[in-house]
């Protein structure tokens, strides 16, 4: 580990910390329908959208109507994207004359991008036409992020409102999130990326001749626009197969920093937005603090692990005769980014649910692979995707105050709302969906022939590849461990199921909790209220997240990265 490496990490943390409050305030104003800097420009567009869609912006919905709107909207999204991918050969903007996407891959891809996962069983530049990338992938990246933020805002309203039957209007929240938040930031970010060298063109791939005289095809396309929303949305699906390790997606150290800030920006800001909407910014900072501690532990562990290098290589004479420093694990990493920026990006990617990568996670050391898995296994509460990170963390807050209430004999309350049995039931339903899908489908894939056929490595590493795939899908992360050949009907369909469960069967009970909380009065704070804005609650919440995540997944981690780490120490590699 080096001082410049830690400085890179500190710089990133400082930038995220600095934008959290102003962006959180902006989000709170946007979703409250208050005047913002962009309202004079975008207000007429917003009204035009409402008129075109027959939306009454003042007509609010119960949680059930909100959930039905959410589900119907995304059902149409999956069908539309599926048809687009299946018909791309006859649609325009296909200069490479790419064929239609196969049915199982089209379904997997459609579910993947509509659920804000962006798991990719394909290589973008060799599979999707420009139209599929722009009208399909990019559009769904916007809409899935906007709908995730809408659900988070509805959840916050559950805490903030008193004796209310409604949690907002899904169509209004969706429109405002897209128009006032995602679009403006993406336009600025895309222009910056173009200035840094990211392509934005509809011209076909360039055919060039190398210095040796061999022909070479260099893929390009409308990359910058997709790149901006890929990162901001928590989606992470790359235009190119190599994702953000490709120099056309992430050409400079500055774009690397910008990409990580885009990934974390909205998720971090939503904690402040929560604090403002419930009337105590301190409550938001508590959530931000818990996320920051978990993130810090992850990035510190990753950096230390990757910088220390492979323990088997460390025993070789060639290494120690040249230097007293251990050779860091550079396999699968871009030399231009190095260890610190690769470890930081990997931690940002797996904690945020974005899934973009600037290094190959399969080539990380086993212990690092375990950290990446653990980041996703805590239900993407460490910043998470826009929206889902916040409501995931709030679910853990409900569990934490419920457990604290049991321990000290007080009625559980959180930000003025009594937590009763119905809220706890819904919370458990939401929290159990992801582990059930992850562990159940991993177990099936490890014993059936189509599942075993996709393995790229033997032993615990092969098992880790399968576990990583289902964890990534169910946690709507989308990053891949590589090594696993997932483009088969078995993996395409089962991973699509995991993504479906991880998104929709979580959000339905989340909205149910929101509805039941909104109907309650707000209880004034008293001497009997458990303070949830103090350091004690931070440590308690951390414990709940680690213990719930740890107890659920520890056996699965023991069979993969943990045993692989121990075997590496004894000289066995996979």
């Amino acid at each position, binding site marked *: 580990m080096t001082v410049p490496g830690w400085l890179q990490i500190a710089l990133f943390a400082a930038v995220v910390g600095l934008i959290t409050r102003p962006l959180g305030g902006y989000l709170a104003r946007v979703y409250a329908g208050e005047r913002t800097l962009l309202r004079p420009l975008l207000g007429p567009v917003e009204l035009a959208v409402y008129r075109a869609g027959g939306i009454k912006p003042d007509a609010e919905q*119960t*949680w*059930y*109507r909100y*959930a*039905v709107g959410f*589900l*119907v909207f*995304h*059902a149409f999204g*999956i*069908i539309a994207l*599926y048809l687009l991918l*299946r018909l791309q050969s006859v649609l325009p903007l296909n200069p490479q004359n790419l064929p239609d996407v196969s*049915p*199982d891959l*089209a*379904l997997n891809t*459609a*579910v993947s991008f509509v659920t804000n996962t962006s798991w990719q069983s394909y290589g973008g530049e060799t599979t999707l036409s420009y139209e599929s990338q722009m009208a399909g992938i990019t559009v769904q990246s916007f809409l899935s992020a906007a709908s995730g933020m809408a659900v988070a805002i509805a959840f916050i309203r559950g805490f903030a409102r008193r004796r209310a*039957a409604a949690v907002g209007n899904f169509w209004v929240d969706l429109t405002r999130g897209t128009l006032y938040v995602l679009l403006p930031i993406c336009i600025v970010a895309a222009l910056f990326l173009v200035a840094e060298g990211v392509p934005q063109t509809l011209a076909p791939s360039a055919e060039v001749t190398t210095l040796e005289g061999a022909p070479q095809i260099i893929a390009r396309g409308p990359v910058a626009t997709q790149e901006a929303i890929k990162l901001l949305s928590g989606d992470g699906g790359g235009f190119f197969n190599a994702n953000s390790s490709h120099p056309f997606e992430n050409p400079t150290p500055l774009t690397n920093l910008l990409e990580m800030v885009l990934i974390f920006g909205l998720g971090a800001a939503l904690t402040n937005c929560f604090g403002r909407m419930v009337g105590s910014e301190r409550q938001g900072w508590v959530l931000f603090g818990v996320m920051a501690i978990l993130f810090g532990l992850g990035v510190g562990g990753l950096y230390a692990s990757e910088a220390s290098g492979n323990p088997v290589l460390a025993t070789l004479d060639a290494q120690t005769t040249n230097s007293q420093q251990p050779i860091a694990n550079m396999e699968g990493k871009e030399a231009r980014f190095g260890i610190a920026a690769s470890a930081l990006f990997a931690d940002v990617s797996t904690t945020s649910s974005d899934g973009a990568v600037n290094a190959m996670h399969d080539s990380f050391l086993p212990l690092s692979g375990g950290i990446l898995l653990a980041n996703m296994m805590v239900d993407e509460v460490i910043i998470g995707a826009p929206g889902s990170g916040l409501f995931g963390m709030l679910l853990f807050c409900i569990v934490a105050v419920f457990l604290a209430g049991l321990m000290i004999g007080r009625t559980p309350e959180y930000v003025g709302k009594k937590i*009763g*049995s*119905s809220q706890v*039931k*819904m919370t458990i*339903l939401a929290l159990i969906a992801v582990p059930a899908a992850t562990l159940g489908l991993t177990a099936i894939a490890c014993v059936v022939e189509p599942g075993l056929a996709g393995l790229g490595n033997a032993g615990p590493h092969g098992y880790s590849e399968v576990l990583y795939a289902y964890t990534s899908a169910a946690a709507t992360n989308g990053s891949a461990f590589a090594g696993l050949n997932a483009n088969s009907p078995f993996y395409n*369909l089962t991973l699509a*199921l995991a993504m*479906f469960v991880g998104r*929709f*069967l979580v959000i*339905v*009970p989340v*909205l*149910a909790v929101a*509805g*039941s909380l909104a*109907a309650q009065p707000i209880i004034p704070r008293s001497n009997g209220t458990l303070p949830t804005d103090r350091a004690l609650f931070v440590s308690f919440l951390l414990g709940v997240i680690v213990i719930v995540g740890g107890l659920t997944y520890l056996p699965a981690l023991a069979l993969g990265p943990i045993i692989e780490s121990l075997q590496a120490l004894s000289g066995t590699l996979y």
Partner: protein
Amino acid sequence: MFDLIMLALVIGCFALAMAYATLCDHLLAPAGEGMTS
């Protein structure tokens, strides 16, 4: 043919998700917090 199967899968899964939402609403109903019941 495969396309019809895939689209039927999508519609079936969303129908189950709708039923899940209704079930959640019924689970809230005893506490007087259900919306549809």
